[in-house]
């Protein structure tokens, strides 16, 4: 370990507390990371990892507590202070200006000594960016516009930004979410070599195997507090998981529904083509079938057409070619109302904002699709009663029919969405990243609902970037790569590596 007894740690946080209206996100967190190490910050969603990193990068000011860098106390009033002190962050949602070039993004906001010229010298910056890219194997064209890049390339730009500023501390928030397993390996190599240069890498994750793979030490956060810091060599995935969740984990695996031969095909997608938001072809002839009682999972790295697939099937996006049929009846595309009538339910990727209207009450949101069944006037009492029933049945905690959706936690919100979608007794459910950002308990609940629905004969198309989820739920797995189905995998025999290879566009060995 590159840690020295005499040297103060590169980063030391003491007693960091950050409160938001109604929640304490960080509650007296202590944290230390040394120069030259990759330090993982592990915790469930909602454990306070992101808040803590926002405190370290000056985005939030802590209510209590202190920050030291190399033993010197610092106070960050803004992100600029943190950047000047050598702390950079790669956020989960990239902070890049889409209309700018790579080089422009890299140089943005830079105001250090000699770099501070009033004039911009694009060529000089481009050259420097290219050099750094070579040095750390972060290949991207400095003149490319951000919106033309894949998410993996955009992540490299974020890391280049930190390198260009010569940051000593780099924080990465869930960086592998947008990568294939193979790309993640490459990222780990880059991070390793950055740490070998004496930088401190703080790697935020909730994935245990990644933490084991890349980090020297790990700090576990739970409920806004730091639970333990230990070398990863001493930890097992099982021990970390228990520290993270705070209790022993019962195995959440249950038997998949076994299908019998006569189960009919409910959803049939044939040679589906669709355009993405920028007018590019996002789906290229996707064909698939989902039978009653089956969970078909679509795996893939984010941005390979998953969103377009979900949106096209549910009518939110017009298909440019191909057909979708439900129980043999062809569906006219591009009209969500027809899709709903045909019995297609949809749990969208974007829960708050698409799945519900954030400021409206639970009553309105549970009636979001059913309101039109009773003539031109609203049956307000009926709507309220239905909402209360649903809240009770799906165990939505701390809410009434009058609670606005934005006040619900992610898990409770997802219960409202699922409850509403199931109440229409659909024959098909398209579920897009249904557990993203949820805590372990909520994930288990959602998985339970999905399994029960499949057992009840629903055909479920599960679109997810989380391979663990897919392996836990799916009867069959297909992989989407650049808008095409790259292949089908049997979940019983498949390894992560095999699926990963398909996700990266390789063909099966």
């Amino acid at each position, binding site marked *: 370990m590159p840690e020295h007894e005499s040297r103060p740690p590169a980063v030391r946080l003491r007693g960091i507390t950050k409160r938001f*209206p109604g929640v304490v996100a960080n509650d007296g967190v202590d944290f230390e990371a040394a120069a030259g190490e990759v330090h993982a910050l592990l915790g469930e969603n909602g454990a306070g990892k992101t808040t803590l990193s926002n405190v370290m990068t000056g985005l939030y000011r802590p209510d209590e507590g202190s920050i030291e860098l190399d033993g010197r106390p610092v106070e960050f009033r803004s992100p600029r202070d943190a950047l000047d002190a050598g702390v950079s962050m790669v956020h989960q949602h990239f902070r890049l200006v889409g209309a700018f070039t790579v080089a422009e993004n890299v140089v943005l906001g830079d105001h250090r000594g000699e770099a501070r010229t009033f004039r911009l010298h694009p060529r000089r910056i481009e050259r420097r960016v290219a050099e750094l890219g070579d040095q750390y194997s972060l290949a991207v064209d400095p003149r490319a516009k951000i919106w033309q890049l894949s998410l993996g390339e955009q992540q490299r730009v974020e890391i280049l930004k930190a390198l260009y500023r010569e940051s000593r501390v780099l924080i990465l928030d869930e960086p592998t979410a947008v990568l294939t397993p193979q790309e993640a390996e490459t990222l780990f190599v880059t991070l390793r070599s950055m740490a070998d240069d004496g930088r401190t890498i703080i790697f935020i994750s909730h994935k245990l195997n990644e933490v084991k793979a890349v980090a020297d030490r790990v700090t576990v956060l739970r409920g806004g507090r730091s639970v333990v810091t230990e070398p990863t060599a001493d930890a097992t995935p099982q021990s970390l998981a228990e520290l993270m969740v705070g209790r022993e984990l019962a195995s959440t695996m249950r038997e998949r529904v076994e299908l019998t031969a006569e189960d009919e095909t409910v959803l049939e997608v044939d040679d589906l083509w669709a355009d993405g938001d920028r007018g590019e072809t996002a789906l290229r002839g996707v064909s698939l079938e989902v039978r009653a009682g089956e969970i078909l999972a679509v795996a893939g790295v984010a941005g390979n057409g998953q969103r377009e697939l979900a949106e096209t099937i549910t009518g*939110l996006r017009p298909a440019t070619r191909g057909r979708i049929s439900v129980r043999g009846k062809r569906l006219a595309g591009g009209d969500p109302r027809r*899709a709903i009538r045909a019995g297609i339910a949809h749990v969208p990727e974007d829960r708050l*904002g*698409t799945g519900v209207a*954030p400021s409206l009450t639970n009553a309105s949101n549970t009636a*979001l699709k059913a309101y039109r069944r009773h003539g031109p*006037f*609203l049956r307000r009492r009926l709507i309220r009663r239905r909402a209360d029933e649903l809240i009770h049945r799906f165990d939505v905690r701390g809410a009434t029919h009058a609670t606005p959706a934005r006040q619900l936690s992610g898990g409770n919100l997802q219960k409202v969405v699922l409850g509403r979608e199931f109440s229409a007794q659909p024959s098909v459910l398209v579920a897009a990243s249904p557990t993203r950002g949820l805590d372990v308990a909520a994930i288990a609940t959602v998985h339970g609902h999905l399994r029960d629905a499949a057992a009840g004969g629903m055909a479920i198309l599960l679109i997810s970037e989380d391979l663990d989820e897919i392996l836990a739920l799916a009867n069959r797995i297909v992989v989407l790569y650049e808008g095409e189905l790259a292949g089908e995998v049997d979940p019983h025999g498949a390894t992560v590596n095999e699926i990963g290879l398909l996700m990266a566009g390789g063909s099966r060995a």
Partner: protein
Amino acid sequence: MSVRIERRLEQPRWLAVAVPTGSIVLALLLTGAVLLVTGHNPVHAYHRLFDAAFVGKDALTQTIVSATPLAFTGLAAAAAFRMNIFNIGAEGQLYFGAIFAAAAGLYLHSWPSALLIAAMIVAGAVGGAAWAAIPGVLRAFCRTNEIITSLMLNYVAALILNYLIFDSLSYWRDTSTPEAKVFPQGKMLSDAATWPAWGIVHSGPGLVIPLGFGVAVLVAVGLWALYSRTRFGFEVQVLGDSWRAARYAGIRTRRKILAVMCLSGAIAGIGGASQDGDFRHLLDPRGLQQAGYGYAGIVIAALARYNPFAVVLISLLLGGLQNAGYALQGADFPSGLVGVMEGLILFCALGCELLRRYRVRVVRRTGREPTVPATEPTA
């Protein structure tokens, strides 16, 4: 110490009353300051203003006359803004309502009065809706920003209005006398096209309520019922909150945009019809354009937070202000004061709106022990 702005989780009910009241009081104080700085006596000015708006002979009647078009344009704005459709075009839609209603009034002059008036209202609504349909269609089918298009069309409508009376020999222009050829003006409407008014209070200052104001109140009730009790209203509510959620729920967003734009335009258009029938009795480009009804309507809708009943109330308040402004125009009363006051009221209301949505807290940063305020957090 630092100031933190936090989103309120719950909005206390009393704030809904306190915030608008507070902002009007604050605006009055600021206007007072402007008056003082420029050497006027604010107490005197306010006294005269209040008299002219609400107390003096015919003051209340005139206030309602000024308030009527404002109520229409305010309701028009509220109807659209509720759905986050920013129809800035009530001004032009009101002109078109006036043009269509005047045409109906002139053309159908032989009809019995009640029918003729009804026809004028319908024509006004159709005119306003038609003009609003242009930005509506563009927004719905070409995704063109309705703010700018509806704004631009206000000027086009104003120019059309001018053209009809000043620069052409149109159907609306009075060409019967030689004078009318030199000083262009609109044809007078027949008596049958004059909208009735009801005297409510005959003694003292008196109070006469024109039909148009009654129609505005009815429109307010209708709008409230439509938006809170019907399927259409539910869809507008969802669209107003989240476009994507509405699409997801299978709401036909394009039709709704068009429908709401036309509804908004129709309301403004009836306001134009009321101008013809209630007050002006001819198509009067100068009079219609002078007051800036459409823009004031947006102010009113924002102050009323898009609540139709509040729109009617606040239109009476601003109507009083405008009425007093005209009544007092002269050497000893500062002109432009009405606009200054309207602007300041709106500034204050916008500023205070923050207090309703957010809580402003002064936070004292402390060390580890929250009970003992530490002077140096990093010590």
